[in-house]
């Protein structure tokens, strides 16, 4: 019988065995690596959610991990309103998330997380929904001329060009007939229990120019943020809170890695 294997025939089965073994080991190693990586991610996610925010703020490694987890989530769910650069949108009143001004809470990770979970006027029973900006003009709390006076006063507060006499009248209305101080506080620094923003500028939800302020006071505002509790996973929500905490000017504290 003719030997068709030739010289390669002797090495063929051995080589094929070696090749198979190599593929098997590579596949098993890849699977193992994938499993380890997945377990590692899971462990990081668990750790991210399990840690109290105050502890988390001192864990630079976790803060970094949270940011990497949050960026795609932000891009998909938050950017349509707050903008890809987090600077908000005056048209919809979505606030700038990079400044240090927070409508609700003090900007801690826990407070941000709470807002993301339940939203603002979202319909969720735990949402922030104490009050909203009343339509002072439309509801006849203030006349159109009085609204203009209050606008001048707010312009004065925020150190913008204003009419002095009107601003003085507006100041009285602010503390008296308009009841503005009730929510925005006597020093116009706002009140995070009510979601009332400070009026000192330069950060504005809807804009601090004369026509926009007039519209805000005359017709009121009623901002909305959805409740994300049933859309995002707990690690995603915590990661977003950490990400926004960092982006809002709170630098990542140096701490044990």
């Amino acid at each position, binding site marked *: 019988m003719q030997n068709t294997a030739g010289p390669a025939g002797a090495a063929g089965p051995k080589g094929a065995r070696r090749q198979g073994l190599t*593929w098997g080991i590579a596949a098993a190693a890849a699977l193992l690596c994938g499993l380890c990586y997945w377990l590692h991610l899971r462990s990081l996610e668990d750790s991210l*959610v*399990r840690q109290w*925010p105050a502890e988390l703020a001192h864990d630079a490694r976790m803060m970094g991990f949270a940011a990497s987890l949050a960026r795609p989530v932000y891009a998909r769910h938050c950017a349509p309103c707050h903008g890809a650069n987090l600077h908000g949108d005056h048209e919809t009143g979505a606030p700038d998330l990079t400044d240090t001004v927070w409508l609700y809470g003090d900007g801690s990770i*826990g407070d941000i997380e*709470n807002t993301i979970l339940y939203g603002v*006027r979202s319909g969720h029973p735990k949402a922030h929904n104490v009050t909203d900006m009343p339509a002072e003009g439309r509801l006849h709390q203030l006349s159109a001329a009085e609204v203009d006076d209050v606008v001048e006063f707010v312009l004065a507060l925020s150190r913008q060009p204003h009419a002095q006499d009107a601003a003085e009248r507006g100041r009285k209305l602010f503390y008296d007939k308009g009841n503005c101080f009730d929510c925005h506080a006597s020093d116009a620094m706002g009140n995070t229990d009510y979601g009332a923003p400070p009026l000192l500028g330069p950060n504005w939800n809807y804009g601090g120019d004369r026509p926009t302020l007039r519209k805000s006071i005359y017709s009121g505002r009623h901002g909305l943020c959805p409740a994300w509790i049933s859309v995002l996973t707990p690690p995603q929500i915590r990661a977003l809170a950490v990400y926004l905490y960092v982006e809002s000017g709170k630098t990542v504290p140096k701490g044990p890695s």
Partner: protein
Amino acid sequence: VTPVQSSGDFFDLSKSHVRRSMVLLALGALLGLAIAGYGLFTAKGTRSQSVPPEDLALVNNRPILRSDFMTQVQTEFATPFAESLPEQRAKVLKDMVAEELQVQRGLEIDLPSFDPDVRNALVAGVQLEVTADVMAQQPTDQELRAYYEAHKDRYVGEGVLRLRDLVVKSGADAAATAEQAMANAQQAVTALRAGMTVEQAVQRYRLEDSGALMAAGRVDTGEIFEFAARAKLARELYAAAATLQGGQVSEPIRQNDGAHVVVMIEHRMPVREDYAAAADQVWTDYKNEAQARVREANVRYLRSRADILLSPAARELEERAQ
């Protein structure tokens, strides 16, 4: 004939190998089981013996979220969570567990089926949820104007009246019969229209105030809104008053207590409000109507998926309602 397969061929991918196939099959099955098991025990709503990382505790498998716990600590002690004491946290946790247990007990004994407060709270909660979007939406000025145009008849300001409702009494307790009273009232009307003062007519024709318009025990001749007059006067009397201008006197109107004469002192007729004047009410009506629509749609949807059995009597009522 089954070919003899050596163990050395196990890794030779160029040859089929029964044992290798079985091993790969087993590995695949194990991997599938592992994935299925993971999905089963970590899916939302599925709880195992371990507490998920986002929860602080599980009470009969109902989670107490860490986030809710932190908020509760801050709210209860008015202090940032990071600065709260372990004792404060322990108290809040204890209270939250107690609350969860009592809520579960309430459901266990089916509290919503008989406690009106719980039922009202549930209804209010559901309505709030379904109308959240509507409440959040701000209608544009164009929408409000269109609504105003479509419902103009609603935005009519109340008219204001000043009138006297005088009566010539008749019947068992009075000197005059009904016919005499009507005749007397007719003479009074003629005299009043001729320019006699009300006080003179009251004395000469034995007229007296009916008592329908009284304030603090005295006859009220001050301004009164249309709706108040409608509520206080008999239907025929108000109908007559509504058409009178200031200074006019009605025809005698027969009532059970005698013949009435309405003397209109002043009548500012209802005025249709323009959009600017009615804007506040338009906004309120627009929002209320939108919420009502959503609530009704929600109930329709719930009915469509509910199994409601009606007795014949109830069916009859349902048909009548439709």
